[in-house]
């Protein structure tokens, strides 16, 4: 155990960023998330793993109230970010989503120029006072998305004209442009080739310095590669949550063991 953690990069802070208590989610009659309690740390990549339909994406979507858009979905319990209940009626979901960015499975750039894709969020949130400031935000975000060098000479080109991996990095740049504190990623690499995947994974590791990153992935190898903490969901339950090194060498729960070793569980 000691040796395993020694290999991980030092995590600067163990401060809790997101704290979820007794979270339950119902879709109509179906109970999708059952009493989940979890503390997600700042400056840490947390991976959610589990078989299809286990609730990991549903839970991820609770963290920026994306489930609000689904009529039959009911979320109960308490989710706090920096000690603030995000389901408080006074919280504006639009502001919340600026603070909690999200990247989806399929790259989904707006049918606009590369520049406008990134500038969209800062514009609607009024983060830039003038064009120079906006230019600066766009460049900074594209650099963070590790795509600046590839697109700096064609910022006016449509974002949809980029390759899949580039589009996904553009979406990450777009997500970080509003200076979020938490970045949620739902299967961000499943539509990408291995090289683009490696680039995104490298990027995730860098993003950890500035954000709390939560990633849902079906690739257990990816969870093992990029995360420091891993949560295993099964049938709506959070079965096990712990250090990634521990989960992949010596999980406590037999269900986790069955899942990560590829046994029927």
């Amino acid at each position: 155990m000691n040796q395993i953690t020694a290999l991980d990069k030092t995590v600067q802070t163990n401060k809790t960023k997101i704290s979820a208590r007794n979270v339950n989610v119902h879709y109509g009659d179906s109970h999708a998330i059952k009493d989940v309690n979890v503390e997600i740390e700042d400056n840490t990549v947390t991976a959610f793993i589990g078989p299809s339909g286990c609730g990991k994406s549903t839970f991820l979507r609770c963290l920026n109230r994306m489930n609000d858009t689904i009529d039959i979905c009911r979320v109960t319990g308490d989710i706090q970010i920096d000690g603030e209940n995000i389901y408080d009626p006074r919280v504006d979901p639009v502001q919340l989503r600026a603070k909690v960015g999200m990247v989806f499975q399929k790259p989904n750039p707006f049918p606009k120029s590369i520049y406008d894709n990134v500038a969209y969020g800062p514009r609607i949130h009024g983060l830039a006072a003038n064009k120079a400031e906006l230019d600066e935000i766009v460049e900074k975000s594209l650099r963070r998305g590790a795509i600046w060098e590839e697109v700096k000479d064609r910022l006016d080109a449509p974002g949809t004209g980029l390759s899949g991996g580039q589009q996904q990095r553009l979406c990450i740049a777009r997500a970080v442009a509003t200076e979020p504190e938490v970045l949620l990623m739902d299967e961000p690499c499943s539509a990408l080739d291995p090289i683009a995947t490696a680039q995104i994974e490298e990027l995730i590791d860098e993003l950890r310095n500035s954000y709390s990153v939560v990633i849902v992935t079906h690739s257990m190898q990816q969870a093992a590669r990029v995360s420091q903490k891993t949560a295993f969901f099964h049938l709506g339950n959070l079965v096990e949550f712990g250090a990634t090194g521990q989960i992949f060498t010596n999980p406590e729960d037999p269900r986790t063991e069955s899942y990560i070793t590829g046994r029927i569980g």
Partner: protein
Amino acid sequence: MVEQHIASAFDRDLEAIQAQIMKMGGLVEAAIMDAARALETRDEELAQQVRKQDAAIDGLEELINEEAARVIALRAPAAVDLRLILSVMKISGNLERIGDYAKNIAKRTTVLAHGPSVEESAAALRRMAREVELMLKDGLDSYIQRDVELAQDVINRDRDVDQMYNALFRELLTFMMEDPRNITPCMHLHFIAKNTERMGDHVTSIAEQVVYLVTGEKPEEDRQKADTTSTVPQEG
């Protein structure tokens, strides 16, 4: 371990690799016993056979390591599967070393067969080898049955082997002091005793791997050490 992998070929790979370990274990057990018997009965032919057999043990180790590397590359094992592969690689290394020690004993037996015999020590060496062989048998059984209790028992028994070695060390020292003509055979016998004691250490390491494989953690207590010969003062 009751559950099967969804990919059944993975199960077959792991079973095959463990079967190789057991085969290797059987050869090594035989090598220990044959080496001890050859020493006691001054049987040069049997000693020669032990030396030849070691090639098969070495070959199996190589095969197991290749298989383990293949499983790691193709299956990316995790959790208990990962621990199984890691333990298999270490255990095959331990068995290979034990085989080498048996071979070395056989080599020295060839030399000893032409000199004067040191009866008392030969019998003590036979008992020590017998104990190590039993420890190995139990160690391998604990591995196949995933029996932590038995593995812990094997770990504890290394103390007895160490004590047998201490006694032999002193005995051989006495013989050498009594008559300088004893020095050559007693030096060989001492190396044989030391080799057997080292075999015990490797068996202990195998048993520790069993504990790690099953529990995911190294055995808690420090290994019991009773080999005190490195601190025996010089006598003038």
